[in-house]
């Protein structure tokens, strides 16, 4: 555990709490722990705006829980009642439309912020020693959040909920040998109805709180290993770091408010950019919609799923695209973290982002026609980046020289 030394900053000179606060702190040191981890905690001085997304994700998570609890109080998890209970929240419950709008916008922007956060980790090599566990807990969170988002999307029980569930349960059913059993565990009966909906409601609610627990591990890990930074070199002296407060509290605040502006603009003025209109029609097992597509944040994986001719193969590709990330710390053997000093990796990563977006667009076009080729090429590139390019780059890449210290790079040696 890093114990912050006396820093010369006013905050670190705060005397230990006295009175009631001191009495509590001697018995359960929550106050001094908070001060150590969120006031005096030292971070590299060169963190850029991409480091705001940790704080942003935390705040959105709290918002999701706060709104979700009140939505759950007014929700009915039955085949016959689910759709109308969501309509009643939107129409008759006082302030319900705002609760639901926050929860829906929050879900979309949570995933968006998560992808940016993940990209930052990839770009600056935040997955490398000594931050492997930090990376792994983050990926566990990614998987959990995706499961939570999927379960949540089932709950309004509109056409897209129903037919999305149909596609996914059948995809799971395509797993050899155990597929049938897995499908039955998901659906709970021979059709998508009360049992399925109830299971996914409980799953959605439960997962949300499990996510909070794993976030606890993730944040603990970052406080043990310290934050990475855009240069990817460890701080060497006190000159390389700044205290969390007031430097990064003020910077996070600016980032949070800008994020809140985007959030509110979408929620109040352009809600239809994020909502799928077809999901405002109630689930109808007798009527397959012409266009079944998942929410935008699942489109890259949907593109992968559809680019492989076999159902099980598609499932493997989509799942593999996340599994491969778990092996990243051991696939990339380069000793240099930040892509700033790795020309090959930098270009390769740009390609990875392009491939990810192309997979999403292909997914939107159901990987039909030209998009089938695009999806296959993008999918090949995606796996190629992790399995071929990164291991090769560690040996072949001509890296740029690293600065001697963070302060030196900032012109403050």
């Amino acid at each position, binding site marked *: 555990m890093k114990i912050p030394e006396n820093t010369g900053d006013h905050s670190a000179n705060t005397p230990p709490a006295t009175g009631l606060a001191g009495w509590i702190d001697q018995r359960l040191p929550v106050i001094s722990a908070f001060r150590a981890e969120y006031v005096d905690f030292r971070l590299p*001085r060169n963190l850029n705006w991409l480091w705001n997304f940790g704080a942003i994700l935390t705040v959105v998570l709290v918002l999701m829980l706060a709104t979700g609890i009140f939505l759950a109080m007014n929700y009915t998890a039955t085949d016959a009642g689910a759709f*109308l209970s969501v*309509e*009643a929240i*939107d*129409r*008759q419950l006082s302030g319900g*439309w*705002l609760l639901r*709008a926050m929860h829906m916008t929050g879900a979309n922007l949570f995933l968006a912020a998560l992808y940016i956060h993940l990209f930052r980790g990839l770009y600056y090599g935040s997955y490398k020693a000594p931050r492997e566990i930090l990376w792994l807990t983050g990926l566990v969170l990614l998987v959990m959040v995706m499961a939570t988002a999927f379960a949540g999307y089932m709950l309004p029980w509109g056409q897209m909920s129903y037919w999305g569930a149909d596609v996914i349960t059948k995809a799971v059913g395509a797993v050899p040998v155990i597929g049938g059993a897995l499908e039955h565990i998901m659906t709970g009966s021979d059709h998508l109805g009360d049992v399925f909906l109830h299971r996914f409601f409980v799953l959605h609610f439960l997962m949300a709180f499990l996510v909070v627990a794993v976030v606890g591990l993730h944040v603990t890990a970052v406080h043990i290993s310290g934050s990475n930074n855009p240069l990817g070199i460890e701080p060497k002296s006190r*000159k390389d770091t*700044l205290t969390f407060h*007031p*430097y990064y509290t*003020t*910077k996070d*605040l*600016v980032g949070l*408010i*800008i994020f*809140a*502006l985007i959030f*509110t*603009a979408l*929620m*109040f*003025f*352009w*809600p*239809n950019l994020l909502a799928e*209109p*077809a999901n*405002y*029609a109630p689930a109808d097992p007798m009527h397959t919609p012409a266009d079944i597509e998942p929410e935008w944040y699942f489109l890259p994986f949907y593109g992968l799923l559809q680019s492989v001719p076999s159902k099980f193969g598609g499932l493997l590709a989509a799942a593999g695209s996340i599994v491969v990330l778990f092996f990243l710390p051991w696939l990339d053997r380069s000793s240099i973290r930040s892509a700033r000093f790795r020309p090959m990796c930098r270009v390769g990563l740009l390609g990875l982002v392009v491939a990810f977006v192309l997979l999403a667009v292909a997914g939107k076009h159901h*990987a*039909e*026609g*030209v998009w*089938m*080729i695009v999806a*296959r090429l993008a999918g090949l590139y995606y796996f190629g980046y992790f399995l071929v390019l990164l291991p090769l780059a560690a040996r072949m890449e001509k890296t740029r020289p690293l600065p001697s210290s963070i302060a030196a790079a900032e012109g*403050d040696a």
Partner: protein
Amino acid sequence: MMQNTRFLALAAAVFLSAPLTALAAVPEPLVPPHQKWDFDGPFGQFDQKALQRGFMVYDRICSTCHGMKALTYNDLNGIGMSEQAILDLAHSKMIAGPPDVSGQPTSRPGRPDDHFRSPFPSDEAAAAMMGGVAPPDQSRLAVIQPHGADWLYAFLTGYRMPPPADAPVVPGKFYNDWVDGHLIGMPPPLMNGMIQYPDGTPATVEQQARDVTSFLVWAADPHRNARHRTGLWVVLYLIGLLVLAIAWKKKTWKRVKSQ
């Protein structure tokens, strides 16, 4: 060399087999002409007078066949109807009650918190009575229907009587420019002067179509006025907060630069 060619051919077959299917593309859906609506755009607001006229059209005409089961009579508060008017309206609707002691079906006058009365006892009954297809519920119609308001208006004013000379004549079907295949079982619902607006607005087909379209868009998004108004204040507040936060951040970080 041989090997190479075969590989290329195989690769080409794998990658090119798919696009052939793309040639059989779906025909482009009809795009209705864009109308100017008060409620369009990020700051748009519904005109309550138009909504009230639109509800009158819905109540007198559309509701004969189309339900709106997500709405309650109380929701009409949102179009500026008074509590007394809502109470009177609900009272005028007979709603199915529980079976009486001898098992006979009963009915009772509606209450303000009742959902809009459905025109048919069930979707199956609706389909059976309406020639096989149940008239769609209109609670969210304006959201689900592509091109929402523009399409609704184009459709309501798009019947052609008599149909164009080259159109096929099918008994029980009507010609409309804005539906797939141009034939639809729903007869033209609006006629000039069919209803009389209490505010004296001339009830032309176009006027009724505009009003009922506004009402349907409101029904699909009843809190739009409040959403736009609240949003404006929230954004203004956040911009003010952002200015302060930037100033604080700059002041704080100046110390780093001068270290």
